[in-house]
């Protein structure tokens, strides 16, 4: 099962998902499109500027291959300090 986490503004659109990824999902981009198709509010939030994506707690800057063993996090713009 893949774990899909949402942080910041995106956490308002979805709870954490523990799911078996549908077969057609091979990458983080595929996952983003699929999540958006399930949830219109999340689709809009995922398309906003400045979001980050992490796979297994590493930030990624381009789409990346994922499997059912991965933890994928979608994050709205970071703001600390």
């Amino acid at each position, binding site marked *: 099962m893949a774990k899909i986490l949402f942080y910041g503004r995106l956490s308002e659109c979805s709870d954490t998902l523990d799911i078996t990824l549908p077969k057609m999902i091979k990458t983080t981009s595929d996952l983003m499109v699929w999540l958006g198709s399930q949830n219109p509010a999340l689709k809009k939030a995922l398309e906003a500027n400045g979001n980050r994506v*992490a796979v297994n707690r590493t930030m990624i800057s381009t789409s990346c291959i994922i499997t059912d063993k991965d933890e994928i996090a979608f994050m709205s*713009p970071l*703001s*600390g*300090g």
Partner: protein
Amino acid sequence: MTEAFDPELELARFRNYQKNTGAIVSFTGIVRSDADTLILSHYPGFTDDEVKRVGEQALERWGLKDYMIIHRVGEMQAGDVIVLVAAASRHRRDAFEATDYIMDKLKSDVPFWKQEKRDGAVKWIEPRAQDKDDLKRWET
């Protein structure tokens, strides 16, 4: 990531650890009174690693003797200390720059999220254009 802490005590403790250090620069971030409450959230198991990574980058880049980063999460009120950063080095310039760098990274490049409660309404605070420009200063 921590609950409320005493920045003076932590800084004194940090200073006492140091040997052959010529300079300590520290930054204390305080919640302004613009909002009723500030809520800081983080990504457990990831934020700590990213905070440490930023500290280690600064340690290496400025050849620091040591550094300290304490960042609160949870609900805070005006006047509460939200973050304490300190850098120790042989000479002052390195400690000033390293502290500035660490703060810029914490502001918009480490997994923290900020919400502000004002008159009962909650809104997400996102980095300002200034925060992004600040971060760019270190890209060399």
